[in-house]
């Protein structure tokens, strides 16, 4: 009865509008999945022709940094047992920047580096000759957990990105965020990479411990 009196009022009651909007909002909040296209980029090697034998690459053992991960997710880093992948990026970095026996180009490269990177060259004779030769090799079993493999791969990437970023004087996060779309960022990207190729080799997993 009381309501019929109010019928003449020309204002719509908007009080429940908020409730309706809330309801919709909550629906979208629940269903939304903010699409993330982030991840670790990797370039697979080209398909191998079965008629052509794999090229016989002669590389000094000291230029290859071996990381083996077995089916129990234990690591063997350069012949040494290791439980966790944490801190592996430091070892990678040391290995890449070792400059044990640089050739002419590598000496020029070394001289072009900022002092903070130069000081990291340990010049150990049993480690890599120079960054152009250094290869990080990751080998897994078929039974190795993907999470552990990705952690090691992540560490290897981090070592390279740290070096690149330090070389151009920005943080690694900033370097990774470079898109290469415009001239300036492309130049910066190339300057970081020049002469230090990201050489991470992922060997075909062997059969142990898998299916």
């Amino acid at each position, binding site marked *: 009865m009381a309501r019929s009196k109010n019928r003449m009022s020309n204002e719509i009651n*908007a*009080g429940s*509008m*908020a409730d309706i*909007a*809330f309801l*919709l*909002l909550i629906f*979208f*909040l629940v*269903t*939304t*999945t*903010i*699409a*993330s*296209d*982030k*991840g*670790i*980029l*990797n*370039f*697979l*090697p*080209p*398909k*191998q022709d079965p008629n052509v034998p794999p090229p016989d690459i002669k590389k000094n053992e000291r230029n290859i940094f071996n990381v083996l991960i077995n*089916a129990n997710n234990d690591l063997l880093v350069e012949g040494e047992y290791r439980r966790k992948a944490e801190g592996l990026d430091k070892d990678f970095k040391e290995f890449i920047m070792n400059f044990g026996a640089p050739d002419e180009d590598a000496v020029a490269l070394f001289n072009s580096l900022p002092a903070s990177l130069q000081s990291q060259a340990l010049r150990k004779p049993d480690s890599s000759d120079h960054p152009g030769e250094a290869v990080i090799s990751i080998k*897994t*079993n*078929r*039974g*190795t*957990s*993907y*999470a552990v*493999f*990705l*952690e090691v*791969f*992540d560490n290897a*990437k*981090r070592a390279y*990105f740290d070096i690149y970023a330090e070389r151009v004087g920005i943080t*690694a996060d900033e370097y*990774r*965020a470079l*898109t290469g*779309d415009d001239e300036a960022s492309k130049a910066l990207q190339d300057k970081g990479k020049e002469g230090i190729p990201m050489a991470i080799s992922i060997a*075909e*997993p062997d059969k142990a411990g*898998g*299916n």
Partner: protein
Amino acid sequence: MAKFRKKKLGGSDQINTSALPDIIFMLLFFFMVTTVLREQDVLVDQKIPQSTQLQKLQNKTLISYIFIGKPKNTSLYGSEPRVQANDVLIGSPEIVQWVNQERDKLPEADRGSITISMKVDKEVKMGPISDVQTELRNADARKVLYASTKKLDQE
């Protein structure tokens, strides 16, 4: 004016909520715009591992997604990790065909730079992943993104 002042003096203890719907609507529109309704059901477990060195891809249209993990419906598909592309679980040999289909959807100039985003569950072993990668190499789709979420740095 007088009316206005009178109201104020009256000391009504109600907060003016007439702007509330507008605020809520604004939020609503934000979520409506950002939301991507799943065009496909993911049939496999997806607990994405975390890592630190994430890169973001520029061109979203070039990405095709492949999901690997233990099937959610184990009674139907078994408990071994399976590969899902589009809406169905496929076997390794069908991946080449799937890649070619995905590539055909792209404009001709971009076909070479197709990127496969591999969304792999933490629990998966390297065996199935390497099988998939072998197939991707066969299909000459060699740019692969291991989808991953940001891990907070513990220094």
